[in-house]
């Protein structure tokens, strides 16, 4: 009843305020009451007079009241807006209002309103900002494309997923959320997947010998939440950043907290294959071994949008690397991260082979693998023919002088590489000298990390000088519009400084 009257008010008050006041008896009664009250309260001796006097008199008396001012009397619009705000949950009225009133309503809405009401109705950033800041102390809106609403929903979904326990939590919690957030979520960043909890927790410490076999037996039951239905529901999903594991376990560490089962793997593979908008896929610290990597990568072959694949901190060996190499030639992958895996020389060779003819890949990270000189030489050979790669990370790969020699040759020829990392290798003094020779002919390289790689300080210093000269040249090229330079190098230079 009240709602409808309010609605009426809203519809009319946008036109003429006076007419609205005249037509709605309810509202006028309220104002009259208020009007009559104020003098009654403020001026006691005039009470009898005011009662006698007609409306005009009353007004005059009001005017004489020193405390009275027009601001005390709220406008009908204000009242209506207040009403709308208080009843927003039951009767959300927003789009029918004038823009200024919308703004007022939004600024007064409570952030605690249920998402079912607000999700698809309110686009206003300030509201979502209030919601976000109320929920989280630190809000990095820049990481979410500068949109508070997107951030709110992404983090909300993260929260829900992070605390989702398969088997105990109702899946409808997430499924209900899909229609609300399907248009806003572009990224799912999940650094925790809780395993299903078994109520009778067996004492692990006691039965050490059985734990492995028991884990094997119970593995089917250890499946995590299946993202398939959720991802299928999200229209604009672009980034999937997953870690199958438990955070902050501390001293409660258990191996089966970090299980990425085959069923999980198959489900994830199907999910990412079905998601055609996916651009970035990260699956780190999830004990992905060769088999699982192959399953995942097979599903990613010829993916229409995928640009970045990050499988760092896993257990991928040579076979997985070979699969990744195959993926390189069957997709438009721009960034490949296989840091901290168990790729050895054969895997690196297959990757190098793929790299030789690739024209998409910009960044390759093989940090903390063990490709050794054999793999390093293969990669260096591949760089002779590659004209696309700009960033190469070969830190901690047990590389030594032969690789450095080859890389020095590549450096004098290649004009696309801007950043190379060879830290934590055993390059040696001679290797350092050769690299110095190589870089003296290069004008594009901006970063060359050779820390802790047994190079003479002199050559490291000279390399640093050469890099500095290159950076200056790049900066001038960027500042001088007359020269044509690729934006990539410019941005790379910027990054290196910031």
């Amino acid at each position, binding site marked *: 009843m009240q709602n409808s009257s309010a609605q009426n008010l809203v519809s009319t008050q946008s036109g003429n305020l006076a007419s609205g006041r005249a037509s709605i008896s309810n509202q006028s009664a309220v104002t009259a009451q208020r009007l009559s009250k104020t003098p009654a309260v403020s001026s006691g001796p005039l009470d009898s007079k005011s009662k006698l006097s007609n409306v005009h008199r009353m007004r005059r008396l009001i005017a004489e009241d020193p405390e009275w001012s027009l601001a005390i009397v709220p406008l009908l619009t204000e009242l209506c807006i207040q009403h709308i705000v208080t009843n927003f949950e039951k009767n959300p009225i927003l789009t029918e209002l004038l823009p200024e009133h919308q703004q007022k309503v939004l600024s007064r809405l409570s952030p605690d309103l249920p998402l079912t009401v607000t999700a698809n109705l309110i686009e206003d950033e300030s509201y979502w900002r209030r919601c976000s800041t109320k929920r989280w102390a630190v809000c990095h809106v820049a990481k979410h494309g500068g949109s508070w609403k997107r951030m709110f929903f992404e983090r909300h979904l993260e929260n829900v997923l992070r605390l989702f326990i398969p088997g105990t939590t109702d899946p409808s919690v997430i499924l209900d959320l899909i229609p609300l957030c399907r248009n806003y979520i572009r990224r799912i960043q999940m650094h925790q997947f809780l395993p299903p909890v078994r109520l009778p927790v067996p004492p692990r410490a006691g039965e050490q010998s059985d734990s492995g076999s028991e884990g094997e037996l119970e593995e089917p039951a250890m499946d995590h939440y299946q993202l398939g239905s959720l991802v299928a529901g999200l229209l604009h999903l672009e980034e999937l950043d997953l870690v199958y594991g438990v955070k902050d376990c501390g001293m409660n560490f258990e191996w089966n907290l970090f299980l990425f089962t085959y069923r999980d793997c198959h489900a994830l593979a199907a999910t990412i294959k079905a998601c055609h908008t996916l651009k970035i896929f990260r699956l780190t610290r999830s004990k992905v071994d060769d088999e699982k990597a192959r399953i995942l990568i097979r599903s990613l072959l010829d993916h229409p949008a995928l640009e970045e694949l990050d499988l760092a901190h896993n257990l991928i060996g040579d076979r997985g690397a070979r699969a990744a190499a195959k993926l390189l030639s069957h997709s438009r992958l721009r960034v490949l991260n296989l840091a901290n895996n168990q790729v050895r020389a054969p895997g690196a060779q297959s990757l190098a082979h793929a790299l030789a003819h690739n024209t998409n890949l910009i960044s390759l990270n093989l940090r903390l693998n063990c490709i050794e000189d054999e793999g390093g030489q293969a990669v260096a050979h591949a760089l002779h023919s590659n004209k696309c790669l700009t960033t190469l990370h070969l830190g901690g790969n047990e590389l030594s002088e032969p690789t450095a020699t080859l890389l020095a040759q590549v450096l004098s020829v290649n004009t696309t590489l801007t950043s190379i990392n060879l830290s934590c290798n055993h390059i040696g003094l001679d290797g350092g000298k050769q690299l110095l020779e190589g870089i003296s002919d290069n004008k594009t390289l901006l970063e060359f990390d050779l820390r802790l790689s047994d190079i003479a300080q002199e050559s490291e210093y000279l390399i*640093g000088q050469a890099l500095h000269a290159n950076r200056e040249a790049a900066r001038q090229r960027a500042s001088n519009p007359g020269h044509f330079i690729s934006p990539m190098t410019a941005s790379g230079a910027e990054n290196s400084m910031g």
Partner: protein
Amino acid sequence: MNPQTPIPIEALVEQNAEEAAPNQGPSILSDNPQERIQARRLRIAARLEARRREALGEYLDGKKESEEDQSKSYKQKEESRLKLAKLLLCGTELVTNIQVATDIREIHRRVEEEELKRQRIEKLENEVKTSQDKFDEITAKWEEGKRKQIPQELWEMLNHQQQHCARLIEDKNKLISELQQELKVKDDQYVKDLKKQSDDIALLLERMEEQVKNVMKTFRQELSHIEKAFEVERQELLTSNKKKWERALQTHNAKELEYLINRMKKVEDYEKQLNKQRVWDCEEYNSIKIKLEQDVQILEQQLQQMKATYQLNQEKLEYNFQVLKKRDEESTVIKSQQKRKINRLHDILNNLRSKYAKQIKMFHEENQNLTSDYQRLVIQFKDLQKAMRHFALIDEEKFREVWLMNEEEVKAIVAKAFNVDMVISTQHLGLPWTAPDYWFLKNVGPLSQQQQKSATQIVEEVLMQTEEEGNEEAVPGMETYMDLPKQISPQTTRKILTLLCDESGFLIESKLLSLLLPLERSECYLLRLDAIFSALGIESEDDLYKLVNFFLKYRAHQLSPSQGSLGDQTKMDRSSFLSALERPSLMSALERSSLMTIERSSLMTTERTSLMLALERSSLARSSLTSAWSKKKFLPKLKLELPELESSDQEPSGQESSGQESSGQESSGQGPSAWEASAPAEGEDQDKERQTSISSELIHPNDVLKILEAFVMGLNKPRDLATTPRKRKGARDDSKDSQYWEALTTVIPPVKQNLWDALYEALEKYHLLLTERTRLLRENNNLEKQNADLQAMLQQYLNSKINSELHIPPTQVFQMPTK
């Protein structure tokens, strides 16, 4: 800074995820002193590097300073930028150093772990081998034990076996405990690692914070430096500008002063000049003043004079004015008189008008009467004409008779004279005499010229003749005096002409054609032919005959070589025609044509309607024009006039009468000429009839144009316009008559008359002499009578003979006496 933030977490998780392993990476906070040393070394190396880079930057800065002389602010900016870049680079390096250190630690750990793993596996394998051996031994002993029958031995053996098993189990337990020990160590390691990682993270955070602080500080510093540099630069700029300004101001002031002095000098100069000028001007002024005053005096004198004359003039003018006033009065009087007169005249005018109206009415009636009279007169005139023709014939006859009579008389006289002459010349002069052969001597009857008729006239005649053949039996003379058909009958001519008329309609102006439409056929033909002839230039009768002959010849040519090719034929024809018609070309003879039309119209006056009269008028008007083609211009006018003429009968009546007169004259004149002309034609009627009967139909209408073309080509007759003013047809040419008669009088030429006179004188003398002689002779005779009576009789006889022959020369006379 952002990219660095995930690193510690990552590292942490990484280490969490992995098996608890001993952390051997260098750290300042590590328990291991070597590790601490290593960490410090790293730090020192980093700092050294930073310093070196700083030096490098400075070096670059110096280079820049030396190379380009740029503003301080720019330098400062550049410097700050480099410094900050360095700082950032060093900072990030410092921060990432931790990661690198962890990495290398991890690598070392991994190497060690691998080694340990290998050792462990080896150990396990060894253990398995040995335990297997032992187990095999034990199982072998079991076999052995089965064979043992002695319980003691068996017990011993069992004990032994038990001991073995226990040892085996012990071994295994030992291994297990070892492994568990290892595991425990690992657990400890894990805890340590966790601690280490947290330390690392703390370090990282510290460093990052430090870095942030540093960076902020340095940024602020650099900002302030840059600001200062800008400030300094600005100050410098300000001071330099101020100096410049002051200098400029000073120079400006100096210049200004200089200008002022110059100006003062100039002012003085000008003042001097002005003074001079003033003096000069004063003098000049005075002189001019004197001169002008003189002038003024003169002018005043003149003014006085002028005034006097003015007064004189005024008086004169006043007098004139008075006179004029009087005149004006007079003129007013006259005016009123005139007005009255005008009124009177108006009245008169009105009266006259009414009178005039009456008169008009009267005249109208009179006109009607007159027209009726005129019609009557026309009839009378016709009759009269007939009578005239008749009389003309009679007159002609009479004239001829008189002429013949006179001629006979004259001729008798002439013959007499000739006889006398002959006698004189032969007898008296002894000259041979020949009768003079003059043309007029042979002439019998009145002199007649072949009258040149106009073509149209002929045509008209022809047409008229053929037309009126049937109904005009009353004029039988018509046919006879038509002299045109020399070889051609009028019918043939008519046919040819109608053909011509039909075919060459293009020669007639379209306006004329439209005008002709309402006319009757013959008139139409006539007018058309007129137009065509004028266009073709056919004027005279001869031309017309030529044309007709031409047609006939053409046809004859066409007929005779009918088998020959037409082209040849026409060619030949043309050539023959050209030769035949080598006559001067026809030019437009305006007067003639106009005359022709006049005549033609006059001939037909009686029957003609008012249209004809109008035409006549037009033709009359045309006659005054010089060009034949100006006819065109008149035609529209003519058309316009036509209705007028037809409607009002008054004017035509006058015209008619005049036309009648002229026609009367002409017809009267024409009569004899036509009659004369017809005379020689009569004899030839016969063959012409024969020829024309063949012709006419055989001329194809299509050939008409060809013929015409050929004809016009041939007809090249030059027509002298002014030479022969057309003779009036009717007027008999009397000049020749008088000539004729005079010629008759002068049959004996004056020479001969002189001769005669001389002769007469001589004879007179001779006669005198003779008379003298006779007298003398008579005396002689008397004397002789007296002398000789005897001889008297004879002498007398002789003398009588001599009397009859007076002509005998005196010699004879003188001989006689000798005789």
